[in-house]
Structures are given as structure tokens and as C-alpha cells.
């Protein structure tokens, strides 16, 4: 039985929540009340067809990206295909790796073409598209593990930087991962780009063949998975400090190559409490346990990756 898309304001009266099947968006716009309303209206009009559009091309979108592959029809599907195109032929990826970021981007663009909010974000389960008017900024909280959200750092993003997308990937998250990273958070120019890059880097944080890493073929968990028979990480046991370092090094090497191709602006890689950063993260504050700027955390909590 098809459940209808749900669109409503959250109890704070400010944020819009849109849900349809696996898509869960938290949307917030800032600025003049009439602009916020117009932006939300546009988002609410655009949203109900999003899932149907994607599903109509699901088979194509689940195929491994190849340089000669046919391009999809839908607007969001095109964003997905464009985001993974740079990796086509170089490594395994499907357009599905960018779906969350692409949906976030599409909704955000719908809002900013219909209205003129000073700032706005669309958070699609941790993959976030951002908009700023000149001079505006966001403070963004970052987490070490998506399944256990506590902030480890806050980053300041403003309109002068090119970053408009944030994404997080890791084997503990909702989607399957081929790697062992607890979380890889990526800042990129677009949300779909960040989404695809986070997947690629998280897959690269790995110790191939390590006996502590439990992997099973993706299809054994989800017969429809775009990952097919590729082994996805289900559990990670004991790792020595040198093994943790080796896995992070492997991921950081990939991150640096994406950085040099301008596919990302920065990336933070986490494994077992160790962190590597590639590129410059505009750090606003370090959040240590129980201390620090509580109010700031609260006000920006909605941007925390989950």
C-alpha cells in the first residue's frame, strides 16, 4: 500500500520536514518571513514527485557508472549521474551513491529559484545542500560516528567559500560501505558531489583481507542492492594502531587526489577515534566532552550529520 508523501512543519515551527519512502528531508530557510514561506511552498510543491521520478529510472541508476553509459532523463537523476561521472571507469560507483545529495540539491535549488532566503539548507539524512546570500554563514557540527552523534568539531562555512554541499559516509551509516571508516565527512561545491566523494573515500579507508573485518555480499542483505555481490562491511573487530593508520592513509591518499581534481574541498576521515583531515576545514571550534559552547551546538544541531 503506497504511503503518501508527508510534508509538515516540525514542532519548532521553523523547520520543514518532508518524508516519502526512504527520503527524509529537514529543510530550513532564513530571512524575511515571506521569502521563507515562498521557499517552503516551492519545496512542498516539488517534493511529492521526487521519489516517483527516481524510481522510474531506478534500474539505470543502479548500474555501475561507465564513461559510455546512457544518461538518465530526470533532473535529480542527471545530478546523480553528473556527480559520479568523474569516477566512471576509474573505480566502482553507481549513481545511487549521490542520490541523497542530489535530492537535497534539487529541493534547495527549487527553493532558491522561487524565493530569496538569506540562508537555507536541505538536510537529507546527513547529506546537506547549503545556500547563502553574500556575507552569510553557517556553523556546521561534525560527528565522528554517524550512529552515535556527538560533535567533535564545528566548522564555519560562509558565502566566500565555494562549499555548498556536505556529506557523510561510513559502514555504520544507513547505506552499505565497502570500507571500514566509521565516518568520512566531505565538504564539496555541491551536495551530490560531496555525497559521491564521501562514498568513494569511505570505501578506500580499508584493510583488504583483514581477518577482523566481517564482510558479506551486499545481495545477501539486500537482493536489490546496487552493490551486487561486492562484500560490504558488517562488523570491524580489533585493529592495531598501525592498522588503523594504514587504513586511514589509504583513504587520505584518495581524498588528496580528489582534492587535487577539485572534486572536494576538504574531507575528515574517522576510524576508531583517529582522524585524518585532507584539505582545509574552516574550524570554528573544537567540542570536547561536556564542555564548550552549548548554545552554539543547540542552535546548529539540525545540521549535524546523522
Amino acid at each position, binding site marked *: 500500500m503506497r504511503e503518501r508523501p508527508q510534508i509538515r512543519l516540525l514542532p519548532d515551527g521553523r523547520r520543514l520536514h518532508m518524508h516519502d*519512502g526512504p527520503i*527524509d528531508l529537514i529543510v530550513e530557510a532564513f530571512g524575511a518571513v515571506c521569502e521563507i514561506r515562498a521557499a517552503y511552498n516551492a519545496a512542498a510543491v516539488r517534493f511529492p514527485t521526487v521519489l516517483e521520478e527516481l524510481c522510474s529510472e*531506478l534500474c539505470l541508476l543502479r548500474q555501475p557508472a561507465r564513461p559510455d553509459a546512457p544518461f538518465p532523463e530526470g533532473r535529480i537523476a542527471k545530478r546523480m549521474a553528473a556527480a559520479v561521472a568523474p569516477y566512471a571507469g576509474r573505480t566502482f560507483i553507481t549513481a545511487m551513491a549521490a542520490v541523497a545529495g542530489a535530492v537535497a540539491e534539487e529541493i534547495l535549488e527549487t527553493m532558491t529559484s522561487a524565493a530569496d532566503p538569506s540562508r537555507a539548507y536541505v538536510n537529507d539524512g546527513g547529506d546537506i545542500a547549503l545556500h547563502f546570500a553574500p556575507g552569510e554563514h553557517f556553523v556546521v557540527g561534525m560527528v565522528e560516528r554517524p550512529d552515535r552523534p556527538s560533535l567533535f568539531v564545528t566548522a564555519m562555512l560562509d558565502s566566500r567559500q565555494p562549499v555548498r554541499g556536505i556529506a557523510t559516509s561510513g559502514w555504520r551509516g544507513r547505506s552499505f560501505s565497502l570500507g571500514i571508516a566509521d565516518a568520512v565527512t566531505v565538504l564539496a561545491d555541491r551536495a551530490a558531489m560531496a555525497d559521491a566523494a564521501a562514498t568513494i573515500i569511505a570505501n578506500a579507508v580499508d584493510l583488504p583481507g583483514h581477518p577482523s573485518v566481517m564482510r558479506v555480499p551486499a545481495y545477501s542483505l*539486500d537482493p536489490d542492492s546496487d552493490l551486487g555481490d561486492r562484500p560490504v562491511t558488517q562488523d570491524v573487530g580489533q585493529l592495531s594502531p598501525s592498522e588503523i593508520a594504514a587504513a586511514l592513509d589509504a583513504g587520505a591518499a584518495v581524498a588528496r587526489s580528489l582534492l587535487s581534481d577539485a572534486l572536494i574541498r576538504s574531507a575528515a576521515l574517522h576510524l576508531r577515534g583517529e582522524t585524518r583531515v585532507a584539505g582545509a576545514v574552516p574550524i570554528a571550534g573544537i567540542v570536547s566532552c561536556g564542555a564548550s559552547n552549548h548554545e552554539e551546538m543547540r542552535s546548529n544541531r539540525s545540521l549535524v550529520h546523522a
Partner: protein
Amino acid sequence: MPDDAIRCDACPVLCYIKPGRTGACDRYGNHDGQLVRLDPHVVLDRAVSRGDSIVPFLDRDRDWDGNIVSGPENFVTAIGAGTTYPDYKPAPFIISSAVQGVDMVTVVTEGIFSYCGVKLKIDTDRHLGPETNLVRAQGEPIGHVTTSEYGSQMLSLGGVRHLTGGSRREGTVTCETLLNLCNGKAVELGIDEGATVLVQAGKPPVVDGVQEERMRVGCGSATIGMFAKQWFGKVDEVVVVDDHITGVLSEHQAGKLLGIPETGIKIKGHRSTPGRYFRVAEPGTAWGGTNIEAPLSILQDFNPKIAWPRLRLLMVSTTGEHHAYFELDEDLQPVEKDLPSSLSESVTRIKENCEPALCTVLFMGGAGGSLRAGVTENPVRLTHAVRDALTRVTCGGTPVYVWPGGGITFMVDVSRMPENGFGYVPTPALVAPIEFTLKLSDYAALGGYMDHVRSLDSMMSDERRRHLSARENNPWPLSSPTRPRPER
């Protein structure tokens, strides 16, 4: 199919879900071959009091304030609890907590109800369709028109015959319609030889495209009965204009008892009993649900032998929305004047007494079957404990009315339940949350699964819980350990 995976049809992704796994949404899963909804577990939070309705905090939003309040300030609902089929396994959650020094236990499960349905009350005087005629959704029969009530039309929907006794499509459509109604969504229903009505719990009905706004205070005759004393001495005659029964004060029993003299008024229409007239006009959208724009059009000349100059006449509709005041001149012709302040109060009061027209949805289901075996190894003792008020039954933390007699057949107002509290299985059958709360000692005595009792604290640390604030107008499910609090 190569294995026990099932295809989920909750959204167009159409996930193919293996046993024990969830679909892409993490909301639906394959539980022993049944598609079940696995929303995070709903915990009512008494400490957080919100003025507005219960609003779920989002699971992935991670937005709750981090407060973990312990003890009786939390009540674990069955929403999202899942079931343990077959039923002889202990219920998914059997939770202990201390309430005012008494150890209590709440058995929490989601019941799969084939014997269930919805009683739908639609506040309208409009004729929706003949009694016993079929009610259809998407063309499929899903229920029937039942005995109407004062000011409301009643529909009885669902039930085992439509759910599992008819065609596959009839069952699926019935299940979908019940689910939508119970979860507060709008549903369009067609009645054979009658109207098409758009209904949604807590919202005004839309009958053949026209939204019903207010219930009338009563028929014209009832209005006379209610307000005769307030008019006495302030006016000589009152006509309450109504599509059904138009009332006339001086002729009505209420006027007679007050000693109001005859006025010589003459009403066009069929006199039923003294002071009560049928069919003064055609149905419409003007005065009192009639097509009357000018109220004097329903009056003939006053009887000159009885009437007198300066006779004071109030004409008013059953909703108080229309009113006019007249005095007779020397030729006994009514002349419209401003409504005296002494009468405006009674007109306002008629308006005040008209309630908003609503659709209300009561879910009704029988929990007297095998799900009791998930509570105790001796199921009839649970029935007895409910009957003896030793066990309180709640539905998503909401009080229920348990129908007297055998079994545990209960009714609950869906609008008082947490949002989206109901689910379904493809049987088709509805999934409703149900909680049984009783003293731990009573639970042991009725043969409960004592070794499956877990503490409330262990629930509160479960990250998959969803935290809601309790509704102010619902009694707190754990408020009185022994006696259910009377419902307001």
C-alpha cells in the same frame, strides 16, 4: 521466489526485503515473512509538556534535548513495538516501573487485528444515504450506513467480512481506508444511492463538495424548548426557522407551560404537532438550511382577532446565524426593527451552542484472541483482570473503552493517539498498538512471563526509541496503579 524475501509496496522503491532485514527506509521490515512497520519505538514523555499536539521527534534528526527522565515519567507505548508471532511467545516488551512505590508492569505489543473496524460519526443533518446501504472506497464495499444519531450520520466501516471475506481488492482497499482514517488522513467515501463524503478525523466533513461548518443547536422545535424561558417576557412570539422542524414559541408545549398567550401567527407548511411545522421551505443554504432569504415569506397574515399592534416577533435560524426582529403596526403588518439588546443575548447563545461539525473516528478491535498469549500463559486470566479493572488497557498510551461482556473488545478515539500509530500487514489486517498495565504482583498471579520483564531504564537507553510528549487531555497511563482514572 528464491528465499523468504518479501516485496514491500509501501513506496515505489518496492524493496525486496530478506527476513530480519529492513527496506531502504528503515521503516518497514520483513518479520517472519510478514511486512511490518518498524518505526522507532514511541515513548510518551510526561515531563515535557507542550501546548500543541504530540509531535514525534524524528529518529534520524537526533533532535531531542538529551534529557533522560526515569521512572513513571515515561510510558512505553506499543507503537513500533512489533509483535511476536506466533502469539505464544512473550510480548516484545514487558516493562517494569515503580509508580508511587508500587511495582507496575506494562506489557507492550502490537496487535494484528482482522476483527476490527472504524465507527465514523459525521456531524451533518444532510442525508448521506439510506440506512444499511453500502459505503464504498475506490469503488470497493468497505462498510455500511448505520443508525443515525442526533445531528450526526453514522458509518460502520471495516470488519472481518470486508477485510478477509471478500475479494483481494476489497480487503486491500478496506485495510488502506481504515489505516488512513485511523492515522488521521482524509478519505473519500461514496454511499450507494447517496452522497460522496470526504472525511478526516477531527476535520469537518465535505458532503458532495460542500464543507459542513457548524452543527445546528437542535431542530427548530428543540431550540424553542431550550430557549423559551430566556425569551419569556422579552418578546411575544419566536419562530425558529429550520429545514427539518420549524418551531413557534406561543404554540409550542414550552410556550404553553410558561403561559405565553396565543399571537394569531400563521405559518405556511405542514403542522406536525402544536408549534412544530414540517416543510416550511425547500432545503438550501439560507435561513436554517432552507432556501428562505426573506423570513416573512413563510408567514401568512396574523389572525386579526388574536394579534395586536406592537406585538414583538423574533425570527431566528437554528444556528443563530440569521435573525430578524419585527413589531406589528396598527394594521398588524410586521415591520422590521433593530434587535433589542435584551434579545441579542439569546441569539448569541444559540450561536454559542452550535458546535463545529466534525468527523470523528473510533477504532474498534478485539484483543480477546491469541495476542493475550503474549501476555500470559493463561489468556482468560488477562480478560478477567481487564474486566476486574486490575489491568488497564491503553492504545498508544490513550485510554480505551472496553466493551462489557466477553473478550477484550475496545474502542479508542484515534485523534487522541500519537501520530501514525497504526500500521498494517498484507493479510490484510490492521496493526494497532496495545498496552496492558497492571501491578507486578498481579502480573505474576495471572501467569505472566516474569523472566521477560525488563526495566524501564533499559528501554530508555535504546536508541531506536521515539520520544513524544503526552497529551494533556489524556489521563497518564500510569497515573493510578489500581483504579483507572475516570475519563473526562
